């Protein structure tokens, strides 16, 4: 079954260099999908192909059942928000928002009603006559969002819209984007390299690396059940310990003289050297009945809501994120400590 937006077999080459390869994705109406990956992974190129600014070397793009693979960008009815805002400096906020409606020759009164409606939606009703250079970065990006929405697009594309903003404004605007997307129930593709943004905003996340899709899934699934080593290490912090498989059926593994256990499936044979993965927030500094390792505290970093403790364990480094509470007894660098993690919180990768 194909979705509202369907990308099938998309491939893009620039002078023989493959930027995107074998990209298949179906997006349902009203869904919020993020493309997440490091710089150069092909996420923006894919978005630009959907927008019509680049043409795929192979594959098809269908929007609402219509093949738009080779349709011009100005004929697709897709709204786009850019990282650099791209507001027209010679126009006021109201003129910017009305631009697409003027191009569509929408009647004057309907146009101004729509502009007022969108100014209310972005909570900037008093900025209609301001010029872009009179607005803050966050306000400019809200206007860019309103301008993209003014034309009632079938699809909304956002290309790293928050990366040029301060942390606090970024958080506020992130919530604002999600609120507006839900309110309008508009199908949205969001490109970002910020995992927190992707996890917080999306119904589904597409993790990309080197032009390929690594994993597609809901944020919870992506974080807790990463399909590949890349996804595991790119999304969130990850500890990776070298271990040897002892009994794959019982989930028994060994790290030096320590016997450990995992409840997840081990696909390697007995005696195979593999990596044991676990998230820092799954590790505690308490004693437990199993999966206990001894080590020396190397650093303790206060990060506000969490405290990050780095422990050296048999030549490997393990990071433990402890929730900051007033009664937390923090170790000091050089202290001996014991760390533990539950068997269900770790998994093995080759």
């Amino acid at each position, binding site marked *: 079954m194909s979705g509202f937006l369907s990308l099938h077999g998309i491939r893009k080459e620039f002078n023989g260099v493959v930027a995107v390869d074998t990209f298949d994705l179906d997006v349902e109406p009203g869904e919020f999908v993020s493309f997440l990956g490091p710089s150069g992974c092909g996420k923006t190129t894919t978005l630009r192909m959907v*927008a*019509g*600014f680049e043409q795929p070397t192979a594959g098809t793009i269908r929007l609402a059942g219509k093949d738009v693979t080779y349709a*011009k*960008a*100005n*004929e*697709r*009815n*897709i*709204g*786009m928000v*850019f990282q*650099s805002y*791209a*507001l*027209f*400096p*010679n126009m006021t906020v109201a003129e910017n928002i009305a*631009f*697409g409606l003027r*191009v*569509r020759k929408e009647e004057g009164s309907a146009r101004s009603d729509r502009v007022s409606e969108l100014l209310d939606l972005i909570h900037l009703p008093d900025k209609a006559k301001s*010029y872009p*250079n009179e607005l803050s970065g966050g306000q400019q990006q809200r206007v*860019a969002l309103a*301008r*993209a929405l*003014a*034309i009632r697009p079938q699809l909304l*594309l956002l290309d790293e819209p928050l990366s040029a903003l301060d942390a606090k404004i970024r958080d506020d605007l992130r919530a604002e984007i999600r609120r507006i997307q839900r309110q309008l129930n508009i199908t949205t593709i969001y490109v970002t390299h910020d995992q927190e943004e992707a996890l917080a905003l999306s119904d589904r996340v597409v993790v990309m690396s080197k032009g390929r899709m690594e994993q597609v899934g809901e944020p919870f699934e992506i974080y807790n059940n990463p399909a590949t080593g890349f996804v595991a290490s790119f999304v969130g912090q990850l500890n990776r310990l070298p271990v040897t498989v002892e009994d794959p059926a019982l989930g028994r593994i060994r790290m030096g003289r320590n016997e450990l256990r995992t409840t997840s499936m081990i696909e390697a044979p007995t005696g195979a050297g593999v990596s044991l993965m676990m998230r820092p927030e799954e590790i505690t500094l308490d004693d437990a009945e199993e999966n206990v390792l001894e080590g020396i505290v190397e650093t303790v970093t206060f990060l506000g809501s969490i405290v990050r403790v780095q422990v050296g364990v048999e030549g490997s480094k393990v990071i433990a994120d402890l929730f900051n509470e007033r009664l937390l007894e923090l170790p000091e660098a050089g202290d001996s400590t014991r760390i533990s993690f539950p068997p269900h919180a770790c998994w093995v990768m080759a």
Partner: protein
Amino acid sequence: MTISTAPIPVSTDAEAPEAPARRNRFWAWVIFIMTAVYFLIPLGATFWWSLRAEADKLGFEAYRRLFEDANFWPSFTESVVNAVAAIFLSLLIIVPTAYWVTLRLPRLRPVVEFITLLPFVIPAVVLVFGLIRLYGRPPLLLTATYDSSRVLLICAYAALSFPYMFRSVDNGLRAMDVRSLTEAAQSLGAGWPTILRRVIFPNLRVALLSGALLTFAIVIGELTIALFMAQQTFGPYMANLTRSKVYEPSAMAVVAFALTWAAMGTIALITRPGKRG
């Protein structure tokens, strides 16, 4: 950790850091005054000479005679019209070219820059002979009548303006995010003509005016090409005046200087900080 409450040590030799700045200011003034003198003495002398048209008294008689000359206003008006036409033609050629090079063919920028610089390299007399040879015979006969020669002259002036116009427009385009603005307009449904007319041209206003006014300043007094094409423009009029009158050429020089500075002043006024667009 104890935080010291002692006052921050202050240099006792407060004069020392200012001394080099004062010396720099002194030499800056010396250079400024020398430059001003270098330019202002000849200009002052010309102005002084232009005021001596009447015996034993200073006055604006030369200017009165100049403005009442039957050929002054027609030649001046013709040059203004030629300049405006050349500016429009140049804009029509340069803006889409520079825009397309910036957007789609950045690798071609050095080639286009070289081509637009050719009017600096090719002397005007060579250019006009080339034009006459090419357009002075069928099938592209443009020198047969005064008006068709004038069209050719305007085209030549447009070519002369390329170095100034391309650089102005190119600087203007580099100062804005052309790609994002274009793509934003495209995603909103705009085609190329709308993008150029409503997004690119308005945001290039200052750059276009700079290029246009520089072109105006050059075209208004251009002599060589106009002379060879037998055009009765301001350049040949000024040259003729120099040969036949005593005081009026000086008045003319002062007027031409004022016109050029008016053009420059207009650029400065339009491009002053805080001005939109």
